[in-house]
């Protein structure tokens, strides 16, 4: 249980950190596709006997390149390309699992995670990745935002856009590969998007959004674990619901002072 709490705090912080950029750049669907398409890599790695983080990372890089290549084709936009890659990866992973024995157990833990059974190794990996991502964002955060809001200006200012975008995608990929084996796809998506979307409602300043987002992420993790223990429901589901509740409360709270904006 101690490890589960540590993992919830670390994963919440990690997801909150990267989530700011996912929400600002509107990459939620891409994140969803990554979580699903990393799956066949993890399964294949487990079957062959390679380390699962390696398999997941490799599959994720393939997906990122695939979406980028497909969406440049005539008439194919990013949403459709992402959808195609998502279905292909998902079907491949599920098909691979189904050929193995005892697969239903693996599938459900892939979807909703098994945060209660994480060990010291998972927590260490998450902590290390948290450090790496914090450094990357501290160094590159400004250029990510610049390139996102004003690509032309960023190019004129001498940034290499392809490199900036690729760095951001690979960082997102790194977070997903770290978090999904421990907490599952649905929880990973919820922890990445919901706290950051809630934080975005409170402020327009990147530093404030990031701090709030990390805070919301950690709070969702802790409160969800607590609720899950008390009411005997799946931990991943409880954390997701707390994260969604924070967003709904933020929506309600930030709308009260400014009723004129309401649609």
């Amino acid at each position: 249980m101690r490890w589960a709490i540590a993992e919830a705090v670390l994963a919440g912080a990690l997801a909150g950190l990267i989530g700011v950029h996912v929400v600002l750049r509107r990459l939620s669907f891409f994140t969803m596709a990554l979580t699903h398409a990393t799956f066949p890599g993890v399964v294949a790695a487990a079957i062959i006997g390679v380390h699962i983080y390696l398999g997941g990372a490799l599959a994720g890089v393939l997906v990122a390149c695939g979406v980028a290549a497909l969406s440049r084709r005539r008439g194919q936009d990013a949403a459709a390309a992402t959808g195609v890659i998502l279905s292909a990866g998902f079907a491949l992973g599920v098909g691979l699992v189904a050929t193995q024995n005892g697969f239903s157990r693996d599938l459900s833990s892939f979807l909703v995670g098994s945060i209660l059974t994480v060990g010291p190794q998972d927590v260490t990996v998450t902590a290390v990745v948290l450090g790496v991502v914090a450094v990357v964002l501290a160094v590159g955060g400004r250029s990510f935002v610049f390139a996102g809001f004003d690509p032309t200006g960023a190019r004129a200012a001498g940034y290499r856009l392809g490199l900036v975008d690729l760095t951001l995608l690979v960082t997102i990929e790194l977070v997903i590969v770290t978090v999904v084996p421990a907490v599952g796809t649905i929880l990973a998506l919820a922890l990445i998007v919901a706290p950051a979307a809630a934080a975005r409602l409170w402020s327009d300043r990147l530093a404030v959004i990031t701090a709030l987002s990390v805070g919301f992420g950690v709070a969702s993790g802790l409160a969800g674990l607590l609720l899950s223990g008390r009411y005997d429901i799946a931990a991943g589901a409880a954390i997701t619901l707390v994260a969604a509740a924070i967003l709904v409360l933020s929506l309600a709270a930030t709308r009260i002072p400014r009723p004129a904006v309401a649609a």
Partner: protein
Amino acid sequence: MFEAPFMVRAFAELALLALICGPVSVFVFARRLSFVADALTHTVFPGVVIGFAAAGAEGIFGGALVAGVLTAVALTLLTRAGLLSDDAATAVVLTAMFSVGVALVSRRSSYTSDLTTFLFGRILTVTPRQLAETAVLAVVILALVAVGARAWIFRAFDPTGSAAAGFRTTWLDLWLNLVVALVVVAAVRAVGTVLVIALLVVPAAAARTVTDRLPAMAALGTVLTLLAGYAGLWVSWTASIDYGVRLTSATAVVLILVLAYAVLLPVGRLRAKTVGRAKTVGQAR
């Protein structure tokens, strides 16, 4: 393989779904609703769970219908208000609704087997009654599409123009989201989430590589889905019977559909070269 009656029923179910998914996927493609379609496949899950708990297998259909309609309304309202970006709102609705389903299921004992059924569906055990239900839904969906088609196209390619011409954008969006929800409800119990999301996204995306006329895209999407359905069933049948490899039918169908997409991509590029720089339809927001 069609000497086995259950394979005939499985193919009949897939054929019905091909008939509705061809046209509907064209609108999913034109309006860029892939993520919404993905969200709907997940959000019907709590409805399935509650329906099953309340009324057994008979309740699944009603539960899924209620959950699908609720999601369609919630997504339309959240995106209209403009407080959250579309994709963030969709992601939150998806994860929250799915988690409600998981939380409910996790309090029962047969936890994993339910989830597995939900993922794969039970295409090989489709009953004549389920086939009849799908057929009725298919007629309803095609009627709704036929009524909405022109307005949806207008709204997809020229949102300002359609609003100026008096179309209510919110109602059109809600209508399309409801149709997608109905498709998900019709398909999810038989073929599972893995296949539904593929059926809603891949046919139109594949057809788009070789044509940019919408009716042709719809027809080609349906034909592709039919072929993939037949080939997928055959592959999974052969793999299980002759080679002892457990390959689920839904997975095989999806993989063959995606394969068709991959094959059509270079074909489309060749055609683009010969036709010259055709105007890029399908790019409208």
